[in-house]
């Protein structure tokens, strides 16, 4: 089990953003769904070891992340695309990804090759020399994905990776997701149910700081038969949310 979270509590000021959350994930692509404010980004940030839990245990890749050594180990094997991608506008795309590879302690000799490959996988090779500030929203997102995968991570966390991608890029991205899911545990937070339906093997549905459903994409689709919504996955999503709230 790559991700094992038990009774996770994260509080912000007085309110509990995550409230006794349990989650276990293994290799494959998992979609993290839920309404705005459900705690998706908070959960991703805890798993990225950026945010400290107020309670509960978080074990990633077999390591306890409340211990520094465990955290360092996980961080070497981690890929993380934050919702807001921080970057230096003056860097070129290649410099940005190189810099991140360096921060993730990719062996120096392997950095150029790893950077080339990451850029190729997100189809940004042609823009490798462009400054970050000149990139469009979709390209920035892809540069963010490139830095996330540059260390060939075992645990990949992507917060809204498809934001700003056009339909063609979305399709390309889903293909990439499937490839990545073959060797790593990938958690994709998204508000687009259709992203999950076609590329994810598993679905985690979050509402009000708790996990209200885990299962396969097919199970999600089957959960909403006869309900409202445009697609089977959407119907399942709505039905499950409604069920959790009553």
């Amino acid at each position, binding site marked *: 089990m790559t991700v094992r979270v038990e009774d996770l509590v994260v509080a912000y000021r007085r309110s509990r953003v995550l409230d006794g959350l349990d989650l276990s994930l293994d290799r494959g692509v998992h979609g993290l769904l839920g309404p705005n404010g459900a705690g998706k980004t908070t959960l991703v940030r805890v798993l990225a070891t950026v945010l400290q839990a107020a309670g509960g245990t978080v074990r990633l890749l077999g390591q306890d992340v409340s211990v520094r050594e465990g955290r*360092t180990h996980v961080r070497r094997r*981690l890929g993380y695309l934050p919702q807001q991608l*921080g970057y230096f506008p003056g860097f070129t795309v290649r410099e940005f990804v*190189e810099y991140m590879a360096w*921060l*993730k302690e990719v062996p*120096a000799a392997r950095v150029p090759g790893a950077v080339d490959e990451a850029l190729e996988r997100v189809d940004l090779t042609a823009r490798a020399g462009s400054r970050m500030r000149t990139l469009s929203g979709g390209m920035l997102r892809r540069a963010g994905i490139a830095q996330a995968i540059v260390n060939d991570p075992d645990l990949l966390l992507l917060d809204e990776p498809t934001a700003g991608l056009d339909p063609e890029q979305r399709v390309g991205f889903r293909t990439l997701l499937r490839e990545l899911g073959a060797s790593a545990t990938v958690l994709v937070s998204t508000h687009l149910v259709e992203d999950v339906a076609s590329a994810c093997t598993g679905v985690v549905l979050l509402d009000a700081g708790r996990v209200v459903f885990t299962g396969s994409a097919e199970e999600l689709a089957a959960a909403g038969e006869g309900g409202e919504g445009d697609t089977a996955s959407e119907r399942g999503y709505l039905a499950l949310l409604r069920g959790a709230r009553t």
Partner: protein
Amino acid sequence: MSGWHVTPESAAAYAADRLDEVEAWSTEAHVERCGACASLVSAAADPAILADVRARVLERTRSPARGFVRLTVTPAMGLAWLAAVAGVIVGVLLLDVLDATRLPAVLLVAPLLPLLGLALGCAPGVDASAELLASTPVSTLRVLLLRAAAVLLISVPPLLVVSLLTSAGPFLWLAPSAGLVALALALTTRLRVEVATGAAAGVWALLALGPAALQEAPPPALAPGAPAAWAALAAVCVALLVVRREHLDRVGVPR
């Protein structure tokens, strides 16, 4: 593969395209599997082209050694910050040149500049990449020390020039600068970086700025014997920082 091998003559003939089809095919199929013949045929190719491509290939294997430098750079330390530092230094210089009888202003202001740089360089919301940085295994202590060093490197030389021009002894302000930066870093193991730098600035206000405003005589923090005390504070704080470095994590990450 059996007894069939390329000879130096046949390698040269292959390179010059003088072999008949069957011999050429045999050569090509054979060198895929025989290291010795591969070397032999390779030696017959144009050495100038090979050297050229070799250099370009090896160039791609070089590692980026610029990582360290990049770490020290944060968006806050761009042109705006440099301009602000320059402005403060020119202002201080003017003050001290116009009125040489008072306590030199450079002594009072100089120790605050590195603190300001540190706060701006690492505070939440300023360093947009802090979130990513916190998710990587790179040591936060290393990041902070590198940034503090960069801030000092940029602000100390011009201040040195000013203090030489106004004959204010450089050790009088260099020592408190180091002491305050070290104090701020040590406090960061417990407090948020902007709070920690604020607290260090508060210490300076209490010990130097306040007394200087109230009385004519130099405050104790700037007395001739003070540099030793500041240096001692810096040493203690650095030791504390190293001991408590476990607690330095996720600096500058919004909660």
